[in-house]
């Protein structure tokens, strides 16, 4: 497929069990991850992210399909023969070894000379800023520190690809933010391809070069964070990434008729369709404004920097509009008042289903 793909999965399926009880953890997944990319697998629990990652690491073999590393098929190579390392969700650090010994483990197994190992361990310790704790037992460290050791241990053998399975989910919010930028820095400095698994959409959007949104064992959409956010291809992606409003519309000759009878231009086939619009891409205007959706304010929730105004459309559907908090604080209409909702040009997204 792609020439400069570091890792490529071709039509990979994975089934657990047999007969009626079969679980299709992955269903014909194809993905090409570029050299040096920060690639994220994003999706709800049980969608097959870990299964795909474990298949790349070699812990699981696909029911059908092929895995390639730099163009070479590695589908049946055992994990200890793959130049791929994993940062486990549970860290899985060796409790009987010190921080430095943990980091040295992979290099020792590769049979590197002692001097090279020592130099590399020092470099890794510096990279994750743990020079002071080299001799410490890993059981005596905080979650964030263990996380850094796990990263250093996986990076030390200079793998072609680093796999990270929800590495930040065990950390509290503050530490999590800190480690997010730390991870980005490590990826930039080492130039290693990262495949990162998360079910946190904000984390995916802020960190990734590209994202694959998964659901039910399939990749729903693949693209840059901006593409995924601004042009979701289907209802699942639109709903999973950020907040979104769904509008039912009747399309005829490039004109969509929306609830309340107004028409706006869209690029879609004729017929009944669902359009998506982000809450921050609508504005509350006076009732009766041309090309604005007529609506009734139901409720408003204050969030500090902005407020979420819930409004009911003519067909009964509820939408959310995000209103920036102004200095005056007077821009929130009262519940029950009739308003118009102006949609920013190009904000309407046509969904596949």
């Amino acid at each position, binding site marked *: 497929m792609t020439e400069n793909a570091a890792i490529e999965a071709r039509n990979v399926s994975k089934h657990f069990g047999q007969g009626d009880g079969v679980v299709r953890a992955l269903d014909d997944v194809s993905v090409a991850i570029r050299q040096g990319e920060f690639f994220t697998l994003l999706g709800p629990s049980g969608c097959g992210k870990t299964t795909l990652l474990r298949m790349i*690491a*070699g*812990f699981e073999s696909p029911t059908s399909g092929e895995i390639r590393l730099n163009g070479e098929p590695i589908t049946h190579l*055992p*994990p*200890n*023969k793959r130049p*791929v*390392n*994993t940062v*486990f969700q*549970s860290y*899985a*650090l*060796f*409790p*009987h070894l010190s921080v430095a010994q943990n980091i040295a*483990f*992979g290099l020792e*197994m*590769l049979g590197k000379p002692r001097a090279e190992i020592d130099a590399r361990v020092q470099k890794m310790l510096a990279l994750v800023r743990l020079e002071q704790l080299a001799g410490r*037992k890993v*059981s005596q460290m905080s979650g964030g520190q263990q996380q850094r050791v796990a990263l250093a*241990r*996986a990076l030390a*053998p200079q793998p072609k690809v680093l796999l990270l399975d929800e590495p930040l989910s065990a950390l509290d919010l503050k530490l999590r933010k800190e480690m997010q930028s730390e991870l980005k820095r490590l990826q930039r400095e080492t130039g290693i391809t990262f495949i990162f698994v998360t079910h946190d959409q904000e984390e995916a959007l802020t960190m990734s070069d590209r994202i694959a949104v998964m659901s039910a064992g399939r990749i729903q959409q693949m693209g840059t964070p901006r593409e995924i956010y601004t042009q979701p291809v289907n209802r699942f992606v639109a709903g999973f990434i950020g907040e979104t409003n769904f509008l039912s519309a009747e399309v005829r000759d490039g004109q969509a008729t929306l609830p309340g009878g107004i028409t706006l231009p869209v690029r879609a086939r004729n017929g009944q369709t669902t359009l998506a619009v982000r809450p921050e891409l609508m504005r509350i205007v006076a009732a009766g404004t041309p090309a604005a959706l007529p609506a009734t304010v139901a409720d408003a929730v204050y969030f500090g920097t902005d407020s979420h105004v819930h409004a009911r459309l003519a067909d009964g559907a509820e939408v959310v509009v995000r209103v920036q908090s102004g200095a005056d604080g007077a821009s929130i209409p009262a519940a029950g008042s009739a308003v118009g909702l102006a949609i920013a040009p190009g904000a309407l997204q046509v969904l596949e289903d």
Partner: protein
Amino acid sequence: MAPTLEERTTRDQIRRNWWLSLPALAILTVAAIGPLLVVLVYSFLTPGEYGNVEWKFSTEGWTSVFVTKDIFDETWKLADAHMTIFWRSVKLSLITTGLTLLVGFPTAWFIATREPRAKALWLFLITIPFWTNLLIRTFAINQIIRTEGLLNTGLLKLGIISTPLQITYTDTAVLIGMVYVYLPLMVLPLFASIDRFDMRLLEAGYDLYASRAQVLRRVILPLVKPGIVAGSILVFIPCLGAYVTPRILGGGKLMMIGNFIELQFGQGRNWPLGAAISILLLIIVSIALVFYVRAINGENRDA
């Protein structure tokens, strides 16, 4: 977590009432130290003509453990026979420990990796031999390995051997018996260690380029070491003092320390020598225990 003030005051109060345990403590002290003292004292007395002891101080019981006086030229020589028995006891005990470890480790691994309910069942099965008397189990082993026993009959029928193997009354027979008897004592502590072992570390090992053998040596063994040490001690110590197994499967001649002690208190009519050897056995066991405690503490210091 540090005990709260309330916990500490309650505990202090209970501690002040220690004298209520006095009767139990007294019985325990007498029962534990009394017989030992008797044995220690007897080892420094003179043997009586028909067994028992004469109340006359002598160090002969102790010296004769190590050296004997030649009956013809009256020169002192190393007590070869005793040394052979000591050496056989230590050797057989070490080999038994090794064999139980070799068989016990895969067994314990198997049990520890079962479903929780299957685990309980397997553990229960492992302890079943403890329900029967040791003597009967040893006779049963004898039935299997003797010349006309199950093993030989089977091998002959299958044409693997043409003449029956002589296993009874050899060191091999004693080894088979001891491995059989003490295997559960190895499996149980090993299981406890392996059960605590985090299996996710195996994947971490493979991920970091370790082969199966390297994962075993560098990840599994260091982490289940406390179980290996505990199991080894639990097997080694009773092996060293084994009496029934070598008596029945080794015949009268292939003695271990336990049989030799019994001999001195019986036909040998040399109670002081028997007492001295008993104390020596105690010392060997204590040394083994010191090593054990050292190993365990070392583990904890590191952790």
